[in-house]
């Protein structure tokens, strides 16, 4: 396993995370609970998709086979995507989307904070930029978790249920493969497992402030997204996302 392959795999994983989550968030467009939140959710989607674009473009350079960001996004099959499972899950109700955003944004925050120090200049530049946007995402969804958790009986019930439902998909965000080893050793990437502690602190603070109950830290966790294991939801998502490109290959605006 060459460094180039390991690096490519890492970059694509994070690009996939952002693209798939961005796609799910974009599904709220015109369906938000009220206009301002519709706009906020799609704004966040746009940040994620933009981050995916930057990463896919870099992936293409690292790979050196002239694959473009569109090739990565639209011309791979669903088995080839390595996004974390939590990003592909259906949006559910607003509480589920908010819980997913909390878990993911807290992860993106600790990851980008560490990745800013990467020995790879492009990854460091990307992370420095992405961190600024992630801070806004994290603050926004954290405030919602608190409003809903410390809200009415119904909002509390839904918010707790959403946290419990998504909790088994959180470990998968921190999955480390054997290919990561070279990248960790030379300072290209942080050891994702070492970021889990800070993530747990952030998430615990928000959930506690929301007067909700933290799930069991030792509960069962789904795994396998980095080796291509996904839920049944991903293939439908990819099918829809790629439908226009595949119907009109080579089309230009």
């Amino acid at each position: 396993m060459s460094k180039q392959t390991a690096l490519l795999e890492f970059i694509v994983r994070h690009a996939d995370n952002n693209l798939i989550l961005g796609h799910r968030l974009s599904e709220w467009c015109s369906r938000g609970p009220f206009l301002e939140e519709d706009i906020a959710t799609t704004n966040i989607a746009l940040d994620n998709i933009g981050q995916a674009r930057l990463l896919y473009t870099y992936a293409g350079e690292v790979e050196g086979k002239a694959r473009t960001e569109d090739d990565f996004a639209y011309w791979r099959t669903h088995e080839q995507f390595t996004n974390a499972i939590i990003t592909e899950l259906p949006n559910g109700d607003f509480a589920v989307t908010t819980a997913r955003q909390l878990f993911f944004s807290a992860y993106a925050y600790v990851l980008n904070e560490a990745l800013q120090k990467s020995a790879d200049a492009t990854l460091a530049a990307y992370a420095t930029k992405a961190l600024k946007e992630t801070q806004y995402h994290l603050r926004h969804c954290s405030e919602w978790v608190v409003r809903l958790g410390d809200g009415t009986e119904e909002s509390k019930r839904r918010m707790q249920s959403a946290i419990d439902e998504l909790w088994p998909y959180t470990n998968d965000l921190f999955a480390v493969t054997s290919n990561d080893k070279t990248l960790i050793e030379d300072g290209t990437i942080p050891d994702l497992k070492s970021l889990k502690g800070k993530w747990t602190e952030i998430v615990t603070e928000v959930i506690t402030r929301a007067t909700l109950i933290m799930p069991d830290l030792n509960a069962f966790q789904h795994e396998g997204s980095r080796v291509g294991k996904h839920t049944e939801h991903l293939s439908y998502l990819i099918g829809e996302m790629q439908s226009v490109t595949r119907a009109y290959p080579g089309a230009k605006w």
Partner: protein
Amino acid sequence: MGEIHHLPVANKNTSGEIWEILRSVVDPEIPVLTVVDMGIIRDVVQTPDAVEVSITPTYSGCPAMEAIGTDIKTALQQKGYSNVSIKSILSPAWTTEWITEEGKAKMQAYGIAPPETETAEKGVLFGKTKTVTCPRCKSQHTTMISNFGSTACKALWKCEDCKEPFDYFKCI
């Protein structure tokens, strides 16, 4: 935090004419501002038969960046520079600190509250909300409606005195 990166207004490699042309290229979303006001232009390298303009994206997903790149190319080509290339660079990361004072004044006159302080919000979780001045009546009695507004870079606020809503250009 690190040093503030300023772009030299002109260096001996690029003609003043190119900078004048760049100062005529407006931000498609906020047409009272130019790409120079926004701090989007990071470098210009001119050789006898080519011009390379380096720009930096404001937000990762900013959809105006492609239009800006095209507009820069078109503006230069219309003035006779036939071989123009646009390069996008990520580092140092774009910050609202690079928006010129002139740019901020134009923004306010246009009805957008300019970024109030020099750095992005430090409080990641539950930080204090900043004080924003209403661009119309200049009151500081204002409230945030949503931190995500009409575009990636703006938040939606309202003024409790004149009762008008307005966009606020977020610090980043």
